[in-house]
C-alpha cells in the first residue's frame, strides 16, 4: 500500500499519511461496503483516490507565494506584512474590485462568482462547467493573488 501511495505523492512521509487516512476511511465506511468488489479492491480504490487528490494538491504547479519568502526549511523568512487594520485607509475593497479584472480569465470568473456574487462551490462549478477540484485550484490562485496585491499596496504606502 505504501509503495503504491508513494507513486502518487512527493514524499514518503506524505505516503504514510495517505495510508493511515485510507485505513481510517475504510473503518468509517465499512458499514456502506456493498460487497460488489472484494474488500481488497475496495481498499485500493480508496487508497488510489486519496493518493491522487493529495498528489495533485501537493504538486500544484506554481506556488501561490513567492518561494523566496521562505527559508530552506520552508518557514517564513519574509512573513506577511500586517495590512488588515489599514484596509479601509488604503481603500482596498475598491482596489480589489479593479484587481479582480486583471486576474487571468478563469480565475476571474471563479472569484467573481464565489467571492463577489456569493455563489456556492457547487453552483459556480455548474455555471462554469468545471470540476470541483479545478474550481478550487482557480479560486486558490485568484484569492492568493488578491491577498498578495493587498500586501504590496500596504508595503508601498509605508
Amino acid at each position, binding site marked *: 500500500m505504501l509503495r503504491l501511495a508513494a507513486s502518487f505523492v512527493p514524499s514518503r512521509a506524505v505516503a504514510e499519511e495517505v495510508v493511515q*487516512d485510507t485505513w*481510517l476511511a475504510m473503518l468509517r465506511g465499512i458499514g456502506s461496503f456493498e460487497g460488489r468488489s472484494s474488500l481488497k479492491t475496495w481498499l485500493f480504490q480508496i487508497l488510489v483516490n486519496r493518493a491522487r487528490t493529495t498528489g495533485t494538491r501537493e504538486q500544484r504547479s506554481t506556488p*501561490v507565494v513567492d*518561494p523566496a519568502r521562505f527559508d530552506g526549511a520552508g518557514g*517564513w523568512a519574509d512573513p506577511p506584512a500586517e495590512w488588515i487594520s489599514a484596509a479601509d485607509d488604503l481603500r482596498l475593497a475598491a482596489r*480589489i474590485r479593479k484587481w*479582480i479584472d486583471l486576474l487571468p480569465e478563469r480565475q476571474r470568473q471563479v472569484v467573481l462568482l464565489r*467571492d463577489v456574487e456569493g455563489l456556492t462551490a457547487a453552483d459556480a462549478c455548474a455555471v462554469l462547467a468545471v470540476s470541483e477540484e479545478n474550481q*478550487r485550484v482557480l479560486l486558490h490562485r485568484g484569492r492568493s493573488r488578491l491577498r498578495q496585491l*493587498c500586501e504590496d499596496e500596504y508595503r508601498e504606502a509605508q
Partner: protein
Amino acid sequence: MKLLRGRDLVCRQAVELMTDYLEGRLSRVERRRFEAHLARCPHCTEYLAQLRETIRLAGQPAAPEELPPQLRDDLIQLYRQWQSE
C-alpha cells in the same frame, strides 16, 4: 493514539492548503495537521486572516460613484423604466 507520523507541515505547504481548508475540503488528518501548524505559527495565522479579509472585501458592494458614468446612467434609466411600468 498518535496518527501523525509524517513530518510537521511547514509554512510553504500550509499556504497552499488555505483554500482547501476554508472550503472544508481537507481530510480529517490533513485538517488536524493544518490546524496544529496554525496553532504554533502566528505568520500563517495572519496569512489565513488576510485571505478571509480579502474574501470579505471582495464581497463588499461597489459604491455608485465607482461605476463608469455611462453604465450608471443606463442603470438609472433602467430603474426609472422599471418603476413606471
